[in-house]
């Protein structure tokens, strides 16, 4: 049954490449390779201010987060098949026409995601570092070990989310119990050993001192997480019918103050009924940000005073901007094509829903400010984070219209996105480092945001809707 796997890989490739051509997509890993290769030459410079161990921590945390986000994007329990492929996929639905079980197909789906994103993200990064290693005085064995441990970090992120989302699909109560058990376990470990629990993260342990026992332990842990998740995986039966009392009309009335109440009501029902509002908030937002905050807190001494809060705020802003993908992933332009709705109207409506969702990052940044004893800078941090989020979503809407999930893998789109967002991040993070209250100036980002959204509407109205 290797055919199923290879065809799923082809399918994934075509989903991405049909939107912008195979060449642009093929260049994506080349760009990651280039960034890693050139970035490696900065390591000797960075090591003068940042110890090597902390750099290792950042890179592993990034790959753990990447795994969490890839997993969180698609692997959300019962809705996963519909969510990921919708009616367009033949392979994800092949249990209906071929003698293959849902679990077998789902296992292939997970392995495919692992292999696919390994070649898309992990390998190009590791390869860039390996090629640069002779020039920066890093032994080849260390570079190869880093590739291995980064792969494991990515897989830990992916399979943890896969495991948690499979638990979530079975029982939300059990999910909370599992999460509490993990937090308590980490706390007890830290208390008993007096060591930062992050250092017990298996890939980091392995990188600091490679032993076969640690390696096998990491692999076994991954296999257990994957195995349990696949056993727990419980797809909805094809014939089941979910019934709901009419919520659309009351919601439309409640949203009457918004520009497009019916579209906002539809988006809200999509988010709620698909489980996305809770699922995505946990797996694509809170979990990655908690991990980032946790890892960044270890670098506190290397930031200027109050700097950590603003780094968390800016990072939260960038991740919060991906909430736009939550509301655009449900439907293509197709369901609207028989209605008098323009693409620009849809973009505006999705951005309105996005704006409502920004309460979540605002509360998160406020919580970080309060928990870290920086209440005095709560407002500048929230303003910075939310302004960055709106600006980044403006760039995203302009570059990707209603298809950010797919177009982000177009190397040209990603490059422009990174440049436009990166410059702004650098300016405002530096400003906040200089004086925390300078972060308030980030509100001026709403001006380019407004211009970008205007341009996005004109640009995507001019594109043939059949292309969506």
């Amino acid at each position, binding site marked *: 049954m290797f055919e199923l796997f290879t065809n799923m890989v082809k399918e994934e490739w075509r989903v991405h490449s049909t939107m912008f051509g195979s060449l642009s997509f093929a260049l994506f890993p080349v760009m990651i390779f280039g960034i890693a290769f050139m970035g490696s030459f900065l390591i000797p410079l960075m090591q003068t201010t940042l110890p090597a161990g902390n750099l290792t921590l950042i890179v592993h945390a990034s790959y753990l987060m990447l795994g969490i986000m890839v997993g969180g994007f698609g692997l959300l329990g019962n809705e996963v098949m519909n969510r990921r492929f919708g009616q367009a996929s033949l392979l994800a639905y092949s249990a209906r026409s071929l003698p293959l079980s849902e679990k077998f197909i789902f296992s292939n789906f997970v392995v495919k995601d692992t292999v696919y994103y390994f070649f898309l993200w992990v390998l190009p990064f590791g390869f860039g570092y390996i090629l640069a290693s002779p020039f920066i005085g890093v032994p080849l064995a260390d570079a190869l070990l880093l590739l291995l441990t980064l792969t494991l970090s990515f897989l830990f992120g992916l399979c943890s989310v896969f495991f948690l989302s499979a638990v979530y699909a079975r029982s939300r109560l059990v999910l909370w119990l599992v999460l509490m058990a993990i937090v308590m376990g980490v706390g007890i470990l830290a208390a008993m050993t007096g060591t930062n629990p992050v250092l017990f993260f298996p890939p980091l342990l392995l990188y600091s001192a490679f032993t076969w026992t640690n390696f096998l332990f990491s692999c076994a842990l991954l296999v257990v997480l994957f195995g349990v998740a696949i056993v727990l995986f419980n797809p909805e039966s094809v014939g089941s019918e979910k*019934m709901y009392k009419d919520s659309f009309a009351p919601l439309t009335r409640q949203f009457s103050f918004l520009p497009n109440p019916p579209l906002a009501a539809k988006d809200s029902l999509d988010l709620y009924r698909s489980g996305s509002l809770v699922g995505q908030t946990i797996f694509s937002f809170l979990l990655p940000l908690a991990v980032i905050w946790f890892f960044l807190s270890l670098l506190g001494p290397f930031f200027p005073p109050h700097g950590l809060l603003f780094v968390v705020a800016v990072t939260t802003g960038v991740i919060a901007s991906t909430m736009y993908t939550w509301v655009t992933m449900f439907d293509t332009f197709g369901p609207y094509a028989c209605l008098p709705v323009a693409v620009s109207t849809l973009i505006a409506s999705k951005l309105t829903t996005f704006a409502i969702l920004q309460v979540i990052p605002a509360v998160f940044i406020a919580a970080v400010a309060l928990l870290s004893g920086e209440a005095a800078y709560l407002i500048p941090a929230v303003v910075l984070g939310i302004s960055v989020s709106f600006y980044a979503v403006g760039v995203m809407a302009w570059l990707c219209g209603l298809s950010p999930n797919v177009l982000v893998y177009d190397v040209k789109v990603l490059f422009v996105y990174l440049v436009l967002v990166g410059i702004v991040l650098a300016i405002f993070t530096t400003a906040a480092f200089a004086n925390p209250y300078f972060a308030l100036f980030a509100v001026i980002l709403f001006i380019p945001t407004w211009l970008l959204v205007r341009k996005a509407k004109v640009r995507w109205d001019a594109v*043939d809707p059949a292309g969506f």
Partner: protein
Amino acid sequence: MTIVLEAKNLMKRYGDVVAVDNVSLAVEKGALFGLLGPNGSGKTTMIKMLTGQTRPTSGSATVLGIDVIKDPVDVRGQVGIIPEQETPPSFLTAMEYLEFVAAVRKIPGIETKADWWFDFLDFADKKNVLCKDLSRGTRQKLMFTQAFIHEPALALIDEPLINFDPIMQDVVKDYLAEYVKKGKTIFISTHILEVAEEICSGFAILHKGRLLHTSPVAELTARGEHLPSFFLSLVRKDRHV
């Protein structure tokens, strides 16, 4: 005679493939006009162009006097459309979808109208079921309803009968025949030739994106010919060209 739909030299290319090749046709008010053709002949692309769902590569078209290239959203506001694939939004119920359509189209009194359609097409028991959980036939009923619930002057419907059982096909055929008697117009794409012969007043045959023939059905029957055999001989002949 009032022309409600007119296409002039419409062409659509997808890369090297010409899906519709210089097609010109006109449909009069009150007609039930059938667009016929084998799979891949360009029927769906034609309907998509006429409803502003995709832009023509060249040529022009007006629908109810509105330019489909300049004002595609206005066209979709005036007409009723059943797309090729039944695609109501996954996480709305059937009733909520109709409320959504009514809100977007600004149709008053949707509850009464929706209930009439639920009864008429016999799917009242599914009104609170999520669209993603509906069967194909029920989704087709829902899409049929959304296309006609605002009683448009012109409906462009792509294979509206394909997922219906014979009883429902009969109900829908009768509805379409009655609808045009009220002075409304229907532009239907189908490859069920017997149905087209039974209910259509005029027809056009597309093959490989080209218009092979257009005429009133009565003209054909006056010559003692039947639409299915005429269609088959014309398309077969064109295959060898």
